[in-house]
């Protein structure tokens, strides 16, 4: 599954990596992802999840996507319940500890209708990092001795270190077909700026074969150049830039809004008894039926949105 260097280079070389504007709609961006692609999701857990992009993939009717992410929250429930993906590679998967174990995840995984492939969190990160660095593997001292390792043993290698004789695991590079990443700011070329928590979104854009960025705000290239320290990945990794305010809702976006906690409660409640029916109703109401992402936000409710925004903006208050 590790891609050869010749292929990696050829695929990168074949892309148009020139400086050009890439601003498009969510629907156009969804068109860049093909059925069967491996899609890596930026952010982590309930933070900077590219929910609007996932929403667009559901509406576009994508099928057989494989997803990977550092930690998966209710985005994974949406993926399984909507049918856009049947496999998620991640280190942890549940809506969140305060809501108990995700019933949707359990329902799909325990029935064998979907797969949750588990790696340790650092291993996920090192796999992306190897992909980002253009090498086939990263050495690691984690996962040894555990069943986490045993279940994915066919995908990795163990070696005796040629320098120290120590046992080491070699974790296979991950080069996803597409990474979808939500950021605070991005220019029309794709120079993306992150504030606060970076998660794996410094390695992910370089590991992936192309990147779709959704941004709270598209800013001018001049503004990017005034704060080059905050640019966390460069334009030439990026294929599409979409401006989507509240593009992580009902998850959070650092400095802008916290999770929409009441909405998350409702989702958990709705899917608790009958995960399939509950998730179906949720998808109908918030994914298929709305006229637009703004309509979806409206259905979540302005009250929740303002509460989340108040929390989000208070980050440096103390």
């Amino acid at each position, binding site marked *: 599954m590790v891609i050869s260097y010749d292929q990696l280079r050829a695929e990168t070389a074949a892309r148009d990596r020139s400086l050009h504007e890439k601003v498009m709609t969510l629907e156009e961006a969804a068109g860049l992802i093909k059925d069967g692609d491996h899609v890596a999701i930026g952010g*982590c*857990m*309930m*933070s900077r999840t590219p929910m609007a992009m996932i929403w667009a993939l559901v509406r576009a009717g994508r099928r057989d996507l494989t997803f990977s992410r*550092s*930690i998966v*929250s209710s985005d994974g429930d949406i993926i399984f319940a909507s049918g856009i993906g049947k496999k998620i590679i*991640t*280190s*942890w*998967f549940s809506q*969140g*500890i*305060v809501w108990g*174990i*995700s019933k949707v*995840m*359990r329902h799909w*995984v*325990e029935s*064998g209708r979907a797969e*949750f492939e*588990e*790696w*340790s*969190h*650092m*291993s996920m*990160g*090192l796999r992306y*990092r190897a992909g980002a660095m253009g090498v086939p593997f990263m050495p*690691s*001292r*984690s*996962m*040894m*001795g*555990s*069943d*986490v390792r045993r*279940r994915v043993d066919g995908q990795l290698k*163990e070696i005796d270190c040629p320098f120290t004789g*120590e*046992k*080491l*695991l070699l974790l296979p590079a991950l080069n996803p077909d597409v990474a979808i990443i939500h950021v605070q700011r991005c220019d029309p070329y794709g120079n993306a700026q992150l504030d*606060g*928590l*970076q*998660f*794996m979104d*410094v*390695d992910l854009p370089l590991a992936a074969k192309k990147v779709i960025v959704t941004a709270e705000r598209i800013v001018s290239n001049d503004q990017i150049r005034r704060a080059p320290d905050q640019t966390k990945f460069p334009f030439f990794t990026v294929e599409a830039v979409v401006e989507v305010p509240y593009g992580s809702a009902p998850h959070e976006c*650092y*400095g802008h809004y916290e*999770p929409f906690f009441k909405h998350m409660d409702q989702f958990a409640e709705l899917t608790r008894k009958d995960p399939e029916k509950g998730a179906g109703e949720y998808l109908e109401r918030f994914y298929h039926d709305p006229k637009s992402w703004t309509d979806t936000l409206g259905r979540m409710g302005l009250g929740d949105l303002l509460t989340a925004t108040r*929390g*989000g903006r208070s*980050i440096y208050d*103390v």
Partner: protein
Amino acid sequence: MSDRTHTASELLAVMASRSLDDGLTVFAGVGTPLLAATLAQRLHAPGLTILFEGGVIGPFIVPGELPPSTNEQRCTRQANMLCPITDVLLLLQRGYVDVGFLGGAQIDRYGNINSSFIGDPDHPSCRLPGTGGGNDIASLSRVIVAMKHEKRRFVERVEYITSPGYLEGGDSRRQSGLLAGGPYRIITDLAIMGFHPETKRMRIEALHPGVTAAQVQENTGFELEVSEDAHTTDTPTEKELAVLRNLDPDRLYIG
């Protein structure tokens, strides 16, 4: 234990917080670990440094604004440094973490933790959320585990090792390639357990006030020895409970 003025979760958080000395660097998970570490910071360990998996070094949690996991912005309040997830986890591998602080669904006599599957992993009766950073923490640092003491949680052999303890005991952990770390304290609402230095079997190191070794054994699915130095812990103080309850006014984690 009916005269308790605190819940089992509160007892757990207080006992766990006491295990954290000032000046340590602690990698903390959400729930009891986070509460216990924050409680320690506010009581006896103002120089305790917390690391969160989301890429956070040295934050102070704001009372009443507990983060829903260790990956949201509430985790970053007053942080000294924010960095990528992979890099904060690599601090474990580099040896910069004194204590990894985990919760767990199921633990066995060698301190192996399962948080992935109940039943056969190929056909689980319950798919749990999985390792997150748990496996990395347990593989690469000394570990304190805080969990409820129930027979179904303390089992002879976990069905699946998510986070490695001493594997099959003796030097099997080291033989597997794990050269550092390992569990050293299991803190529950009944007692504090450690591990025999040679066999690596779990044993009782301390009992909470009013709890007997027999009660602990009754709630444990394997035989527990009692350490020669076993003692009784002090009951939670009013101050400890007051600060704890102020941290979690909605009682999200303290029950």
